[in-house]
């Protein structure tokens, strides 16, 4: 913890120094100075309209997003007839039949659990595999460094659906087709480029002095990695964690092809089977959507402070 604090102080020190030692503001800020007077005397009406605009924007966007959520929630309690006759009305009665059907007849509860396992394990693997290589790539100069980094960057650009076939062959060869572990490996591989891109970017921003100090204190590489770099990279890890979790949670195309046993299907697969043209039970679909959102929403709400705090404390330095 102490090490982290020191770095942040050093980092802010730099900027403080900069803003203090430059007597004149940077050039682009000069017009600001000129505007200084007129603005001070400026009218409050301008401010009021600005505020109105601001709040319309915030709450307007809120209304769209929350409205949609609430609407799906209400639809989930209705049957088709009710949906068509009063699409915006409150449900006539709160009946959980759609939920019960979705959870137990369509087995959403099982899909939920599978998805959660896959997403969390993918995040963990990405953390382990991504942080070690990022540590080496960001903190040490050696021949081939740039080349290896570019290998990951290229991974960011390839359209993933073109990898379905070769990935399937791989999984087939090593006998992991139609297993959750196989799916986790595939998701980890697909998310590594993103992970490395973000982590290398962040770790490069960590001042060199920190690890030099640690090395002088007698730390070996492992200790530098685990005691200095990882704690300081928490914010970036939080970002990576969200991104990877979401992509593993949402992934649909690879799961379609790799998973064919119902018992290990993931949530998107279950949801997609709802949409097959043979079904138009909108209430049931809505219940499925809600079921797929609630658990992640809860997880996010529990961890959101940590995530935001984590991301913000050092900030994504890129």
């Amino acid at each position, binding site marked *: 913890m102490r090490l982290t604090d020191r770095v942040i102080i050093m980092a*802010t020190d730099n*900027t*403080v120094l900069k*803003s203090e030692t430059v007597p004149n*503001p940077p050039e682009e*800020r000069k017009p*600001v*100075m000129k*505007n200084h007077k007129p603005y*001070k005397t400026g009218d409050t009406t301008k401010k009021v309209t600005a505020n109105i605009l601001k709040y319309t924007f915030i709450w307007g*966007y809120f209304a769209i*997003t*929350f409205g949609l*959520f609430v609407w*799906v929630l209400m639809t989930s309690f209705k049957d088709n007839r009710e949906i068509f006759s009063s*699409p*915006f009305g409150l449900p006539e009665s709160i009946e959980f039949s759609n939920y019960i059907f979705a959870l137990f007849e369509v087995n959403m509860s099982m899909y939920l659990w599978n998805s959660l396992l896959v997403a969390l394990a993918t995040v963990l693997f990405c953390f382990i*595999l991504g942080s070690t*290589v990022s540590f*080496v*790539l960001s903190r040490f100069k050696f021949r081939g460094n740039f080349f*290896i980094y570019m*290998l990951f960057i*290229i*991974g960011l*650009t390839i*359209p*993933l659906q*073109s*990898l379905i*076939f070769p990935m399937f062959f*791989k999984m087939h060869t090593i006998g992991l087709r139609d297993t959750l572990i196989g799916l986790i490996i*595939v998701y*980890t*591989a697909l998310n*590594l480029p*993103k992970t490395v891109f973000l982590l290398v970017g962040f770790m490069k*921003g960590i001042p060199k002095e920190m690890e030099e100090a640690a*090395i002088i204190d007698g730390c*070996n*590489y492992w200790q530098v*990695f685990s005691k200095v770099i990882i704690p300081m990279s928490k914010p970036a890890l939080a970002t990576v964690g969200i*991104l990877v979790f979401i992509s593993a*949670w949402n992934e*649909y195309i690879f799961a379609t092809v790799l998973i064919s046993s119902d018992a290990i299907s993931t949530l*998107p697969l279950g*949801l997609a089977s*709802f*949409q097959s043209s043979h079904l138009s039970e*909108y209430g049931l679909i*809505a219940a*499925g*959507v809600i079921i797929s959102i609630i658990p992640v*929403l809860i997880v996010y709400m529990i961890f959101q402070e940590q995530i935001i705090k984590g*991301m*913000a*404390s*050092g900030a*994504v330095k*890129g």
Partner: protein
Amino acid sequence: MIQQKRWILALFALPTLLFYTYFFISPVLNTFYISFFKWDGIGEKVFLFLGNYMELLKDPIFYSALAHTLYWVALVILVQIPVGFLLAYFIYQKVKAYKFLRTVYFIPVITSSVAVSLAFSFIYEAQFGILNSFLKLIGLDQFTTAWLTDPNTAMTAVSLPFVWNYIGLMMVILFSGLQSVPDELLEAGKMDGVNSWQKIAYIILPSIRNVLVICFVLGISYAFKQFDYVLLLTNGGPVHQTEVTGTYMYKQGFDESRYGYGNAIAITMMFIVIVFTAIVNKVLQSKE
């Protein structure tokens, strides 16, 4: 100072590199390799060398799909990131109930694309869909349309779920960037009496440039790669009207069994994305 052997570092990198090479790079090379062949997935591969690429250059559907994809990129740059930024900025100013807002804004991000598509297919549905019902409710009957098939609206209609889905993500990333803007700078700005726009343009944006680069790179790569919304909402139709490169490639591979051609599209797109990302990096970096 203890001299450590450099080769120890290899122990850190090697497991990941092996994993990545085996599970990612080799599939990519395979894609690259197949793109030189005519292959239906089971039969003999016929070597065409650049044949698939030559055909691609003359394929009008590919160009329209590419145009649609670029439209997505434009939406990311002009709508997704700006809206995400404004939301982040207002939340950063701690408007009333900002914590609640922050959670709600994030809901779309954690909703799976399949679920989002399902919800939107019901919104757009021409007969019972809520968008048309709503327009009728407020007396704007003349604006109702079949959102997903009307040539004027179809492309925008399939894009909206994608744009909306990721605004919350952009918001969170930009928000964390805003937290890092040194207070001293803002204080200095206040003393100079800058107005809000000046503050954003001259103080905030330059100091979160790195975070912006992340948003642009992620947003653009998502825009080029994302295709499940289209696949689930319109499947690229009617008549390729909403085709994006992602769906076109997928359909060439799976529906038409032209894997070689599909892979040639993939490799071409890869190069286009690399060029785009490089440009973004140049533009945003050059200001430094």
